[in-house]
């Protein structure tokens, strides 16, 4: 009894930071709900205050994070649905930390940057619900709790696209909702199957706890593979991975600017984060088994997204397709199953969030002034709007992956991981880097260069207020480009633990069932150093070196 009390006391002394991160935006949304519509002047300040406070808390969490530990930190564990063994279990490790902070930063920016037309009250309330849901997704350590947050964010996004969107917004909103739900249908069955099988194999009570399930690895190889397929479909929709991507261009293009920013920066990461948490961590052996397929799909995403982006007539659609390409790099890095690849994937997640978020904001600014996003109708805006052009150039360079800016280290490490994990996928994926430069530079040229006609010549430049929103983004782009080291080092313990977990589980599975076909990944580990040195002499041997070589290896990559 005394021991129980002592441990409870120890738990209660630590401030439940994660609970506050999730509940604060919810509380803000509820507060907005209570304010009558006639007092519309309150909605925006409440939304800004709540989101900034949440963002500040997430940054505080970053500073308090123990960087040497691979364990889950700031954990909360409370009973929720007792007969199913569902617990409100939350925690952060090096993998989810930066995605959490990214949410904490992007939401205030998205809210600050855009003033919605129409109904203010519902808009800000939905934005805050979206924020709370995102915080929940990145911290949940119980499958069902994860699923709850994963699904609940559909509702605010559905309304954001449907009410405040453009053009074919109802179509886009419905498509977005149904595609995700289609994936979730598989995921839900997979989750329940995993929990039920775990219960049957171990004899322990039913649990949906991710950590327990991942540690026990009680499910048979065949079952684990089926369950992995179910998860993979769900996350493939969200990422989106090639054949299930068609909702994304519609949703991104028709969504209001803030919606596009959040979709690209945060919501897409649910999928890639899901691959890490539910694929590699929960079902490591099955993930290793599926790695060749996933790598192939990642590479298809990179090249297909890039080619489609180059063909787009609509600037926003172009950025949307570029997301598919960037997310392909994340899938590639993740399923290379190497420390470098996964670290790179995580970096791309964060950096794509910043750069593409910024690009969508810029496209939104252009649309507000010109009421068109068709590239052919724009042109020559550089003269009238030099500041806008400057910021656009800068963000675009980051997106292209110019060394020294934040896009580079992530893509580089993903490719490095891919070369180690599966050389030929890496080789094909490199073309994506070149294509990215092609479509973005070409788009920039068509929008900002050339003779200005009509409204483009007299366009209002970015004002200081608008520019102020970009200052933190630009700061992050430069900082993370020049000094990716601290971030990589913080991720490292968790990523290494994850890779070791995958390695160990697939070894065990092979020992149990010698006839399992080996994934290419396993062979690649032996010849890793050879591959690494073949491509990039200085940075082949480890993640920490990879990080420090960020700026040193720039000339070697040389695609800019």
């Amino acid at each position, binding site marked *: 009894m005394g021991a129980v009390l002592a441990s409870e006391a120890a738990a209660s002394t630590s401030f439940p930071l994660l609970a506050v991160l999730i509940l604060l935006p919810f509380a803000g949304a509820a507060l907005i709900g209570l304010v009558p519509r006639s007092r519309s002047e309150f909605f925006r300040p409440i939304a800004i205050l709540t989101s900034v406070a949440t963002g500040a808390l997430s940054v505080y969490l970053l500073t308090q994070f123990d960087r040497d530990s691979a364990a889950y930190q700031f954990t909360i564990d409370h009973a929720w649905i007792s*007969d199913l063994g569902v617990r409100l279990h939350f925690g952060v490790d090096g993998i989810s930390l930066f995605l959490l902070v990214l949410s904490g930063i992007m939401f205030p920016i998205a809210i600050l940057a855009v003033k919605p037309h129409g109904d203010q009250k519902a808009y800000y309330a939905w934005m805050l619900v979206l924020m709370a849901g995102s915080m929940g997704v990145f911290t949940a350590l119980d499958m069902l709790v994860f699923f709850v947050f994963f699904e609940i964010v559909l509702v605010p996004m559905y309304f954001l696209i449907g009410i405040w969107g453009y053009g074919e917004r109802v179509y886009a909103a419905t498509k977005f909702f149904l595609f995700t739900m289609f994936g979730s249908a598989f995921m839900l*069955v997979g989750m329940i199957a995993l929990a039920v099988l775990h219960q049957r194999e171990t004899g322990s009570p039913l649990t949906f706890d991710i950590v327990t399930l991942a540690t026990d690895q009680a499910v048979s190889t065949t079952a684990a593979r089926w369950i992995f397929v179910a998860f993979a479909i769900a996350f493939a929709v969200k990422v989106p991975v090639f054949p299930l991507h068609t909702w994304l261009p519609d949703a991104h293009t028709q969504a209001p600017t803030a919606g596009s920013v959040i979709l690209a920066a945060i919501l897409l990461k649910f999928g890639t984060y899901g691959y890490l948490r539910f694929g590699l961590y929960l079902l490591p052996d099955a993930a290793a088994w599926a790695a060749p397929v996933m790598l192939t799909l990642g590479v298809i995403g990179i090249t297909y997204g890039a080619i489609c982006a180059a063909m787009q007539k609509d600037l926003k659609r172009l950025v949307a397709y570029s997301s598919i390409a960037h997310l392909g790099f994340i899938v590639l890095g993740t399923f290379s199953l190497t420390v470098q690849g996964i670290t790179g994937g995580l970096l791309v997640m964060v950096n794509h969030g910043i750069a593409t978020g910024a690009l969508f904001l810029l496209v939104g600014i252009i649309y507000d002034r010109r009421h068109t996003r068709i590239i052919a109708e724009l042109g020559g805006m550089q003269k009238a709007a030099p500041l806008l052009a400057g910021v656009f150039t800068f963000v675009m360079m980051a997106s292209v992956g110019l060394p020294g800016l934040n896009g580079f280290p992530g893509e580089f490490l993903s490719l490095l991981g891919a070369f180690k994990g599966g050389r030929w996928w890496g080789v094909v994926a490199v073309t994506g880097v070149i294509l990215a430069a092609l479509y973005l530079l070409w788009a920039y040229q068509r929008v900002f260069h050339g003779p200005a006609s009509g409204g483009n010549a007299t366009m209002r430049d970015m004002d200081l207020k608008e520019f102020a929103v970009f200052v933190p983004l630009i700061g992050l782009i430069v900082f993370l480009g020049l000094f990716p080291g601290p971030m990589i080092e913080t991720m490292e313990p968790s990523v290494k633990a994850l890779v070791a977990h995958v390695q160990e589980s697939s070894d065990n599975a092979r020992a149990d069932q010698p006839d399992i076909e080996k994934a290419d990944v396993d062979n690649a580990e032996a010849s890793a150093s050879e591959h690494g040195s073949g491509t990039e002499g200085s940075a082949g041997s480890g993640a920490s070196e990879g990080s420090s070589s960020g700026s040193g290896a720039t000339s070697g990559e040389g695609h800019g």
Partner: protein
Amino acid sequence: MVALTTLLAASDAAIDTPDIDWSAIAPNLVLMLGGILLLTVVSLLKTRLPRWFCATWTVLVSLGAMAAVVPLWRRVQDSGPETAMGGAVGLDGYSLVIAANVCLAVIFGALLLKGYLEREQLEGPEWYVLLMLSASGAVTMASADDLIVLFVGLEIMSVAAYVLTAMHSRRISSQEAGMKYFLLGAFASAFLLYGIALTYGATGSTSLAKIQTYLSGTVISHSGLLLGGIAFMLVGLGFKIAAVPFHFWTPDVYQGSPSPITAYMSTAIKAAAFAAIVRVFVVALGPTQVNEWRPMVYGLAVLTLLVGSLFAISQTNVKRMLAYSSINHAGFVLIGVLANTPEGNSATLFYLVAYTFMAAGSFAVTTVVGRTGDGRHSLDDYRGLSKVRPGLALVFAVLLLSQAGVPLTVGFLSKFYVIQAALDSDFAGAGVLCVIAMLTAVISAFMYLKIVASMYFGDPVDADAPAIRIPASAGIALALAVAGVVVLGVLPGPLSDVVGDATAQLVAVIP
């Protein structure tokens, strides 16, 4: 003369009147007496009763019946299930929860009827009387421990429901729905009765407990008779739960019925019929005959899920959409039945209670949006509802998203429970069925989103349409539905504990 005397003596000995334990059927008695009392009072009084009286009376009677469930629930929890009326009525947690659920549906129906009858200028104690009588039939059916009692309960419930369906005398579609429901319902009842007869022929009893005992002790050499009995009973009960292919009446009847009656009918009747299915198939026949009925029910479940979702998406009438969605929900409950485990029974119970809040709430919305004449049910009538009636639109959106299975609503958890029960039971094809079910949930979601989209993303079409009035009683019903959907969705503990304890058990008859 001598023969007659001996016959009389023999019959005196044979007819052993059972002890009547009135307290065991208290919920039933409250509902039935409440109905009869209202009818008597109304016919004896010379002056007309105020309108609020009948509705208040009905709600109070239902609450009284619910209150009568509580001591019985304690009794069952303390001393185990028991039998009453010589084995005709079984008293277990399952039947008691269903009884409370039926009372809940009556409360919804009565609350909605009050404003509805005023709006439609209809006279009305009979509506309420029939509502209570139908509910007493449903409770009888849910607690039946004997196939004959089950049939009697079903008929009491159904005949009242046929009349209620046709009660709106000025709406031709109401008459048509009533006629259709009656004819097809009578047909289905005949099937059920035939199935009961065949089962009796195969097992020598109509008592479910005796059937169970007999089948567990005897290997039937010619199972054709029993198989036929199972199949015909499935047809009869499948009709009541609107399982495909016995569903053809559902869209027409749900659409044509007065909306408050649809709210009652879609929930109470379905709950009672599912209780009967669980009692007959899982509890009585489950231990021995599961391999006989499971393929049939599996087929029904797949068809029900698919048709319920696929046919819904092309509809433009909201009541019809909801009718198809109720078919889809029936498919989900059937998954819980297929599990053939106590967990499966609990899951069906959870689903049925959740469904009562969702469906009754949704039909409450159609009741008020239908406006005078109860005819405005097309998707266009819902366009821009969020601008005219934001509160109502929000309520409907929550109810629809719950039906679609969005988390933090009870609709998600109810789907979760049945799927968990099915995967846990691990019968052949469980995984495939669960995937099919969730995919149909996505297809249904498309239909729900169509309604949500027209409420939120459109502008009102018909500017001259009369304003939507929400009577206070309907407002209470809507609030109750939304509260149930959200509270149980976030904190399912109380309900899941109750349904977990509500084991369906047959009571052996004391010989």
